[in-house]
């Protein structure tokens, strides 16, 4: 049974019914967040029982928004490994460096978490047609979960999206519309089609439940570190759902009384130099982002000129005493090769960007050598073979 009780506007605080279809706050046009009866949950749930359950995101089903188990669409998402990085640690002069290897999720990225949650809830609410704008991986994930749940999927993606994302969406039965533009333009078109055709728009934060799947990364990290949170989370930030979701998870864990202490990690948003609206806003101290003009980067997931949840992301960065920084595409590619060659992890460009960011943070002394630091590799590099250039020529015999 889910302890979901209601939805709440993240800005004006207005309460909304979670038993009916909702999008975002019609009053102030801000994202809605799912709220749970955590007071009752605290009395009734045994934290350590979750650890004994079968692995996967849905083992936390009481703290996810779906009520009926029949509607919990799973492909085995969640519980992506938290891998120690001993060789990188040594090289960077650190002692507690890890990567959350989200590329091992179904469809090869962390998007599986959010879309498993959102499409499951959409199904529970009786929705049959869903639409999403995507830079790539979210489209593939939505197509897979929609297929699993018998929903019809419509996907708007830039025409230069990695081929793997296009093909995985098509083979799962989704209708793919390639557009001559970025995800922001895809979002405009998807929103318009949703309005005209009556499709449900699953854009980042334009519905409340993708963040719920992503938040489980926060629960898993707390559990993995014995219910004491690490010091620094370094996260590639496009729309920012994962950052907001994890910060929400830490709030929930505190209310549930499951954490050993009140220590919170510092959040670091990593962006690409060619599209860094959060970095610019954070540096200016602005509560929202300006639309980033002429966005460009090889990290398709970071090519988001303005997130619908910009105010939430910036608020969480500030609250956590965190920071935001950008890295160049050449540093992303260098880090991608390095992570693969030194630790055997073939990261997506977005995930590799976190290593490039960490190197800067180490140089600047922003992280201390004994701090527990987690990088997030949000997807497998196997979907980005065109971008990844190996320095090693193949041997042909």
């Amino acid at each position, binding site marked *: 049974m889910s302890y979901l009780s209601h939805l709440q506007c993240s*800005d004006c605080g207005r309460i909304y019914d979670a038993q009916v279809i909702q999008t*975002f706050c*019609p*009053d*102030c*046009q*801000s994202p809605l967040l799912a709220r749970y009866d955590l007071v009752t949950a605290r009395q009734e749930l045994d934290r350590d029982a979750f650890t004994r359950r079968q692995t996967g995101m849905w083992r936390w089903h009481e703290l996810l928004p779906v009520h009926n188990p029949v509607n919990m669409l799973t492909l085995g998402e969640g519980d992506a490994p938290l891998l120690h990085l001993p060789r990188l640690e040594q090289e960077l002069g650190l002692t507690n460096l890890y990567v959350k290897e989200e590329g091992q999720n179904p469809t090869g990225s962390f998007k599986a978490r959010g879309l498993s949650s959102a499409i499951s809830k959409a199904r529970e609410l009786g929705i049959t047609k869903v639409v999403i704008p995507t830079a790539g991986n979210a489209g593939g994930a939505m197509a897979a979960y929609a297929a699993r749940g018998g929903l019809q999927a419509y996907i708007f993606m830039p025409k230069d999206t990695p081929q793997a994302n296009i093909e995985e969406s098509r083979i799962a039965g989704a209708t793919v519309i390639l*557009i*001559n*533009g*970025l995800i*922001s*333009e895809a*979002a*405009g*078109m998807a*929103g*318009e089609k949703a309005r005209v055709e009556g499709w449900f728009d699953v854009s980042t934060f*334009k519905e409340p439940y993708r963040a719920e799947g992503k938040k489980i990364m926060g629960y898993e990290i707390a559990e993995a570190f014995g219910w004491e949170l690490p010091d620094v989370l370094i996260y590639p930030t496009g729309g920012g759902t994962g950052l907001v979701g994890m910060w929400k998870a830490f709030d929930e864990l505190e209310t549930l009384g499951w954490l050993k202490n009140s220590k919170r990690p510092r959040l670091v948003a990593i962006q690409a130099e060619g599209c860094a609206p959060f970095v610019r806003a954070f540096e200016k101290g602005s*509560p*929202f982002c*300006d*639309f980033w*003009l*002429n966005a460009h980067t090889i990290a398709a997931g970071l090519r988001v*000129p*303005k997130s*619908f949840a910009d*105010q939430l992301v910036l608020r969480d960065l500030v609250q956590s005493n965190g920071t935001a920084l950008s890295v160049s595409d050449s540093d992303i590619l260098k880090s991608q090769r390095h992570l693969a060659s030194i630790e055997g992890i073939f990261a997506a460009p977005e995930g590799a960007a976190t290593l490039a960011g960490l190197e800067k943070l180490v140089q600047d002394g922003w992280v201390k050598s004994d701090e527990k630091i987690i990088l997030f590799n949000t997807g497998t590099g196997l979907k980005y073979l065109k971008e990844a250039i190996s320095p090693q020529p193949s041997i042909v015999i």
Partner: protein
Amino acid sequence: MAYKILYIEDNPDNRLLVKRSLEARGFLFLGATNGVEGIDMVEAHQPDVILLDINLPDIDGYEVAKRLRDNRTPYSLYVPIIAVTANALKGDAEKALAAGCNIYMSKPINIRELWARVEACLPGS
């Protein structure tokens, strides 16, 4: 005296949302439903800030911004224009700024951001 904000927008739902939010903040709201009417209202009322939808039924928002700036009166050269669009076409933001808009906002319009953007355009901000 309250600052006058003109919103040129054909969608009545969007106009109503912005009207309510601006009036709640103490602004005087003026509305126009197409580009030509919008230009007429700019000339008649000289609003302090113009909110301009791009996808209008007659002339588009780029043309409205261009005509206003081409008027070359001190007022029309400097009145702040905030483009507000659904961002459905490639390069909307870049085109809006090139046409003479000062700022670009994408829909849905976050009300807190709208207040901040409008207030930043006003004297003394």
